[in-house]
């Protein structure tokens, strides 16, 4: 799109800026504050500076959780994005089934995250849960409370169950927003279904897919409640992702200094990866 230069457009953006800045800037100061200072019981703050950051970045423990986190996020992205897109492509566009599909698909998204964790906790239990019992009945030796592999499987499955619909809804809306003229032109040109997907649908979905990928990336990178309730980070520390570790550090050891530093590092990682991804996706846009 050829955008025209217009500084007055800032006025349109101003309300957004005010709301978000009000919420973002003030609290941010507090967090930054904590991360470079050390708290003592009697509120004596001392300047610890860079030391905390160094400790965090060099710790084995941090790197391990980061590694697990990256593995987890990569896994769910690889599953959820193509799956969501495929489902959106296969969904009906007209007729009574549209409402049924949309409503049913939206349900997993609406459940509070601690309930999601709890229900999957029971659902996947080998003795008393529908899935756990079912898998064991089929011959699998499934126990997510003991076996890290099973724990990973359950978490990934839970996340896919929980969040794929977000991708589906975004992609579906994106598909529906493609004007009919394009499909007509493609028909007239004799294009195959694959050509329609490759040359019309996929390009037009680029923005929507970018949003879906960024959202899922960020949210999965910060995942806490569901995993905490489901496995608590275990068995052992096999499913201790970054957030869980962060909370253990902050609350368990009540060390706000390292916790603050960890938060900042955490934030910067997400920021960097998101920015890289965003730039890559938008690189072809003629601005």
């Amino acid at each position: 799109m050829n955008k025209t230069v217009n500084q007055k457009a800032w006025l349109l953006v101003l309300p957004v800026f005010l709301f978000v800045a009000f919420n973002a800037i003030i609290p941010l100061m507090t967090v930054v504050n904590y991360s470079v200072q050390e708290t003592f019981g009697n509120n004596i703050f001392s300047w610890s500076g860079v030391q905390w950051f160094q400790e965090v970045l060099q710790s084995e423990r941090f790197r391990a959780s980061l590694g697990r986190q990256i593995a987890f996020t990569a896994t769910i992205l690889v599953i959820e994005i193509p799956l969501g897109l495929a489902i959106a492509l296969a969904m009906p566009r007209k007729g009574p089934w549209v409402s049924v599909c949309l409503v049913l698909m939206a349900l997993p998204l609406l459940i509070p995250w601690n309930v999601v964790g709890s229900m999957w906790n029971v659902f996947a239990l080998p003795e008393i849960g529908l899935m756990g019992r079912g898998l064991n009945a089929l011959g699998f030796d499934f126990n997510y409370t003991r076996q890290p592999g099973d724990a990973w499987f359950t978490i990934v499955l839970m996340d896919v169950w929980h969040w794929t619909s977000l991708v589906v809804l975004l992609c579906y809306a994106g598909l529906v927003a493609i004007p009919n003229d394009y499909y007509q032109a493609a028909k007239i040109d004799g294009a195959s279904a694959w050509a329609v997907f490759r040359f019309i649908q996929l390009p037009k979905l680029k923005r929507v897919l970018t949003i879906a990928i960024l959202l899922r990336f960020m949210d999965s990178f910060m995942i806490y409640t569901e995993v905490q309730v489901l496995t608590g980070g275990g068995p052992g520390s096999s499913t201790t992702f970054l957030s869980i570790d962060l909370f253990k550090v902050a609350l368990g050891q009540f060390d706000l200094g390292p916790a603050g530093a960890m938060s900042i590092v955490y934030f910067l990682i997400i920021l960097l990866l998101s920015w890289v991804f965003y730039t890559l996706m938008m690189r072809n846009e003629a601005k």
Partner: protein
Amino acid sequence: MARILIDQLRHAYVQNPQRPEDYALKEMSLELADGGAYALLGPSGCGKTTLLNLISGLLHPTEGRILFDNTDVGQLTPEQRNIAQVFQFPVVYDTMTVYDNLAFPLKNRGVAQGEIDKRVREIADMLDLTQTLHKRASGLTADGKQKISLGRGLVRSDVNVIMFDEPLTVIDPHLKWVLRSKLKELHTRIRRTMIYVTHDQTEALTFADRVVVMNLGEVVQVGTPVELFERPAHTFVGHFIGSPGMNALPCALENGRPTFLGNTVPVASGIEVPHDGKLEIGIRPEFIRFNGAGTPLGDAGASIPVEVTKVADAGRFRIVETRAKEHRIRLLVPEGDPIPSGAAQLKFDPKHTHLYRDGWLVG
């Protein structure tokens, strides 16, 4: 290329049409000659897009048939009918180059690579796209994209008809003229049946050999631009075409002759003057003179006393608005000719004065 016959076509968007108002397209029969350039002209909502979509196959008619060269195409899909369409908003394959865009329809039909290359370059040359062949289609301006759309229709040698759905809407005004001329030139060169839908009379009149004027779902008149101008079959055509449009004045009958405000008005059609219905005199501003000015019309034409009220300058001529009692009559006066002020006499050219009954031309 094909001759298109529209046979007693009627279309309603509602499921069970009962009354005449339910039909978006009233019954019509039309013949479009092979290789002709046609325009479907009319205001928004007149049914021209409906008719276009029926011909292209995007809609199935409620009643009636459409024949391409004597074959009923009612059951055929758009691609089976071998049509090409240029849409109002440019439709191109953004991720492909211009070359690939043009080659796309041929590739899908399994044409050999060498042949594809030849055709693409030929069409690109015709449309002045050769310089941009290697560029990504998304980077072109709106007129470039429309040319690509047109090109995709032209590369196929088996196209029956090319349809244009208000294609110049998004084009910059100074480029509209260029594209219009290009389209006309193209048609003269390749002689394919082309149907051009628009609400802009200039586009229709410059492009088409014959214009189908539509209003409220009906075909009002089919004719060449000259016919539409000189002998509008309906007062609507008179208003819609021409700038400013035709003057329509209420008419009474005195001793079997048409009169306006007591003045006898000789009309072109003349012989049978109906006695019922709402009668109107129609005359275009181009065919009215001030008494004494320009070519004398002799005593044959009507002579109407008026009051000159307004003069507008339109470049090479002036649009003069006059009033006879409460009726407004407009005429065009060439640059340089004198315009009386205050009271004046208008002369109507009898060859171009028409009588209309309930809107329709008499005679």
